Structures are given as C-alpha cells and as structure tokens.
C-alpha cells in the first residue's frame, strides 16, 4: 500500500476506515485500477517513479461528508487533495501535487443550487460541469448564458479556481472574475462563507462580492487553504445578436497603434466580446501556429507578396443588433486613418442559434460547451492531436504591440534552440481583460522524451522571468519554478502565502504544494 508522506500505516488505515464510515465504503478507493483514474493523463512525469499519484481517493456526497473527511484527515495529518471533476489535464488533472495524497473527489456534489434569473447569477456545487449547467439553462428556458472553456467537460468551480477562461463577454470570460460568493470547508473542518454569505439571512450573497473587511475569495484561487463546496457566479444575459469583425493593417509598423486603440476601445466598453490579435501573413502556413515575427522590411515584403495583412485585430460584440452595429461602425472610425486598413465582418447572427448555424460557430463563444477541440488533430492543422497529450506554457506579457513581437521572437527562438515542438502558438490570448497571455502548446509524451521536455520548459520559465513574463497557470511539475520566478522582496509573495498556509492549515493537510505553497512540515522537501 502506498502511504502519504509523514503518515504511519496505522493512521492511514484507520483514516481510510473512518472515511468509509463517513461516506460509504463504495466511495473510498484504494485499489490500483481505481487510482489509475486519478492520474494526470498529460503528466510530464507519466510512468516515472516521480509521477504524482494518489494513495487513495474519497468521494463525499455533501458538505457534511466533506467536513467529516477533512476532520478525519486533519486528526491524522493525512494530506488530502480536493478536485472538482479533475478535467484540467496538463494542469494536474485529478492527480495531487504531493505524491501519496488522498484525493477528495467532489464529483458527486453536482447540484445546481440556484439559477437566479432576476439576479443573473447561479450558485453551484463543485461537481457541476459546464455541460450540466448548459443542459439546465436549455431545459429551463433560461435567459442566461454561462461562459465556458474549451473543452467544456470540466466543472464551473474547478475551472474558476484554476483561473480558467472562456470566450464570451468581458467580466464573465475570466471565470474567477465572475465569482461572487464562496463556501469552503477549512482545514479544521469548519465552514466559511465569503462576502455577503457570512451574514445570516442575507439575500445578497451573489450580488456583492466583498462583504466587509478583506475580500477572502482570492484565498481559494489556485490555493491550498480550503475545500470549496459552493460557489456563486455572475451570468451573462443572452444577447439579442452577435457580431464578429476584423481590422487588418498592412505594415509591420502598424501593430503598436492597432493594439493601443483596441485596448482603449475595450476598456471603454465599446466592444464586449473577447478580442483576437493575430498576423494573417505569419499564420498562412498554419492557422494555429504563428511563425516568428521577421524584421519589418521582410514582413512588409511578405505582405506585399501575399496580399495578406501584417496584423489583425478581431473585435466581437454581443448585444442588441442596433447597438452592436453602431459600436462596430465607431470601432472602424477609430482605425480609418491607418493607411491601407481593411475592415471585414466575419460573422453575425441573431439568437437563438439555428441548427444550421450551430454547425458553423465556435460554440464556446455562445456559452455552449464542446469537446470538438479533441479531434482538431484530424482536421489538417499539422502534426497535432490534443488527445495525445500536451501542456500549455502561458505567460502574462505586456499588452502592447512591442509585447507581442518581443514575446513571439523570444519564444520561437528559445523553443527552436531547445528542440520544443510548438504545435499551437497564439501571440496574445485575451480571456482575462487588460492582459495578454502568450499561449504555447507543446506535446507531452509517454516515454523518456519527457525528461528533456521538463528541462526545456524549466529553462523557458527562467528565460521568460528574465523578461518579466510570469505564467498565470502551469502543470504541477513546474509550480515551484513558476512561484520562484515571482521573487520580488526575496520571495515575499511565497513567504506570505506560507505564513497564511501555516496559520489556516497548521497540520499541512490541504492541497500540499499546490502552486508552490508548502506547509511547514513539507517545506524542506519540496521535491517529494
């Protein structure tokens, strides 16, 4: 039997027996075939002795059972690792960060507690998937839309807690930005409600996020401090219409102004959909991989030769048709002075979406969960098959033209030098308003090539840190390295996180090591 570190066999056996009493014996798993399902199928440590594996898993059905499980673990100092549905493959999936932790699988807690049509909000348990919510909204005839990630097989709670993002309107598509109200079981087994949820009798839990005093929601993002058992979200009222467009400019030199104006328009709420930035001429060989940005003269020559634009900005609009048409007209007016600028309407529709339109659209832009991305590899986008395994490298870069060019060149150059095969490379993803995130996907293997992959990614993390670019999310194997990069004040960020960890979880049982935060008893052995 694999034991969690720092736990005696007696305590572990006794703890599992107590958990069986708490949740029912069929909901405690300790056999190898069962535990195989709690691996991260995209792990960069797959099949190696260092792969992070659960020693057991337990699936409580309600808050009271979660509290019992946490108390049982706390009394015996058994490390536990809560997951919602564990679908964030490559970011850990269902696997713990600390090898041997007991996974607390919250999939059975799948109640949609409320969808409040008047308040445009919902309150859900962690096992509610995006498909569950979509079905609920469809079947109830809801006027609301839920922002979904791509793929949409995960849970609302887990995705938000991991800082996932979608493709819909600002304020909703950065999923943690749409959170309003959290309930969490703390390490001592007590229940905390944040914001207005702390006020008994309040009807405003999903209306006012802050409550009184420090806003504690952030304690649970990418965190080690509690087991979230309920979460509220603000939801987007379904718009009347949708319009997507593009603004194309024909010179290398136009990028800076393109981004500056686009930023101003977005921050002024003149479009609300997720914008896109790309280079038609540099993605002509593969639409999901942007080539290295050449010198200005060469890029302008390529533009002249191909007729493709140097850069494109794609605003998207949700709202009443009259309003979004007027917004698009205004957006065009702001770029009209750029020589050679081209405007295109790339798509428009009125909701509800017809069956015919459903076949053509990118469903997540309309809050419709999809699994389509898993078969993108068979649609001719190069040597790429997401289901074979991959990880993302996703660094926050400056939201400027210079930021795009510099990050592109550094990543392309360094990945080539290190032999990393970039099979998806987006210059600037904008799920999170006011920031650019560089998205680079590289394949993960099931063999010894992963050793080189780990070394190379670790080096990339360091190179990006030298440029001031830090990842917003990463696979468990790199969490310590990424947290190390946030080093201001002699790693004060990590040290404060550790102080909070030790205060709230003195036995160090919850999500040990997640995002580089280790409790005192494991701090010396971060490599465990």
């Amino acid at each position, binding site marked *: 039997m694999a034991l969690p570190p720092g736990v005696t066999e007696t305590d572990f056996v006794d703890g599992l027996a107590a958990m069986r009493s708490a949740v029912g014996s069929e909901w405690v798993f300790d056999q190898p075939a069962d535990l195989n399902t709690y691996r991260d199928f995209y792990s960069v440590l797959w099949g190696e002795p260092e792969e992070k594996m659960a020693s057991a898993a337990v699936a409580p059905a309600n808050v009271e059972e979660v509290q019992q499980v946490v108390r049982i673990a706390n009394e015996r100092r058994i490390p536990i690792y809560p997951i919602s549905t564990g679908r964030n493959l490559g970011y850990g999936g269902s696997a713990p960060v600390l090898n041997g932790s007991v996974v607390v699988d919250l999939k059975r807690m799948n109640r949609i507690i409320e969808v409040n049509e008047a308040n445009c909000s919902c309150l859900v348990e962690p096992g509610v998937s995006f498909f569950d919510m*979509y079905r609920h909204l469809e079947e109830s005839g809801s006027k609301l839309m839920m922002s979904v990630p791509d*793929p949409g097989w995960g849970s609302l709670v887990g995705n938000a807690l991991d800082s996932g993002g979608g493709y819909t309107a600002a304020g909703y598509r950065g999923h943690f930005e749409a959170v309003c109200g959290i309930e969490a079981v703390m390490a001592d087994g007590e229940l905390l409600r944040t914001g207005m949820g702390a006020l008994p009798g309040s009807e405003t839990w999903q209306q006012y996020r802050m409550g009184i005093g420090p806003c504690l929601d952030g304690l649970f993002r990418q965190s080690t401090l509690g087991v979230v058992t309920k979460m509220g979200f603000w939801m987007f009222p379904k718009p009347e219409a949708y319009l997507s467009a593009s603004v194309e400019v024909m010179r290398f030199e136009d990028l800076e102004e393109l981004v500056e104006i686009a930023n101003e328009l977005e921050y002024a709420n003149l479009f609300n959909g997720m914008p896109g930035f790309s280079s038609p001429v540099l993605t002509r060989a593969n639409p999901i991989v942007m080539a290295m940005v050449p010198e200005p003269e060469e890029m302008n020559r390529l533009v002249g030769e191909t007729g493709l634009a140097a850069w494109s900005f794609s605003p998207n609009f949700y709202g009443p048709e009259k309003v979004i048409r007027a917004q698009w007209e205004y957006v065009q007016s702001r770029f009209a002075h750029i020589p050679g600028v081209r405007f295109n309407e790339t798509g428009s529709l009125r909701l509800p979406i017809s069956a015919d339109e459903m076949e053509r659209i990118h469903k997540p832009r309309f809050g419709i*969960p999809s699994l*389509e991305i898993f*078969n993108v590899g*068979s649609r*001719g986008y190069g040597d790429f*098959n*997401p*289901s074979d395994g991959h990880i993302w490298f996703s660094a926050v870069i400056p939201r400027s033209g210079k930021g795009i060019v510099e990050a592109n060149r550094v990543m392309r150059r360094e990945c080539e030098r290190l032999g990393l095969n970039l099979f998806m490379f987006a210059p600037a993803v904008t799920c999170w308003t006011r920031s650019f995130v560089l998205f680079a996907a590289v394949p993960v293997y099931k063999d010894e090539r992963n050793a080189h992959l780990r070394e190379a990614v670790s080096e990339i993390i360091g190179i990006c840190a030298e440029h001031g670019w830090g990842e917003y999310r990463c696979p468990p194997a790199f969490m310590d390295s990424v947290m190390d990069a946030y080093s201001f004040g002699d790693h004060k960020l990590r040290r404060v996180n550790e102080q909070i960890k030790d205060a709230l979880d003195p036995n160090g049982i919850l999500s040990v090591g997640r995002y580089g935060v280790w409790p005192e008893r494991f701090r010396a052995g971060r490599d465990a």
Partner: protein
Amino acid sequence: MISRRSLLKWTAVAPALAAGSHAAFARMPHGLDALLLDERFSPEPQPGQPLIPVMRFAGDVTRVWYDHLDRRWREPGYVLGGITGSDALFVLENLAEQHGRRVVSRTVLDEPHFQGVAPISWVIAPHHPSVLA
C-alpha cells in the same frame, strides 16, 4: 468490480469488434446496449436493420455525449461498444471513468488511419457499484 452479467456482455462482443468496422457492423453483436461508430472510419451505413441502437458521429463526440451518454451513464447498466478514432476514445474514456465505467476491451484495428488518428474498437462497461445493472 464488474458483474458477471456485464462481463458476459462485453466478452461476447469483443472479438467481433476487433475484426474491424465492417465485420463488426455485419455481425451486430449481442450483449451491447448500443454501438458507436465514427464515420471517419466507417463512412457508409451498412445494409440491414441493426439489432441495437447505432450512434454515428464524425470525430467530435460532443453531440453523442450531450444527447445520449451524459444521461445514460448516470443510470445503472448500459454497455457501449464502439469503433472510433483514438482521439474520440480518449475523451469517452475520461468521461466514462468519471461515471463509474471503464474500457474493458480495446483493440487497435489494422485499418487505415485518418489524418494520423488510429481506429480502435472498444467496449465501455459499468464498473462502480452505483452504476452496475
């Protein structure tokens, strides 16, 4: 633990599925509750009336999941066989495991790949006591 009934169901069908998509369709197996066919590998519906429901899709399992499996896998029973691309099986296997089910038979077919994706025949059966028939 897989029940004897479930075991009989999938062991009866696995050899037929392994024989390839056309053969599998022609010798429509008994013991399955439904068959899932990926049109990238089995483009033409076969003549004759199938004995069990046949669901067809083309690589993207979203509709199959949303319209059928998400509901059926919440209930006990339901043994599903399939001939699909490895990419589709990857998605289905992950979803199945979350619903107390497992791939209990898996054979890579000696047939042409589609854009680098291999065809696989498989059976997914209930495993967890909560979904055993």
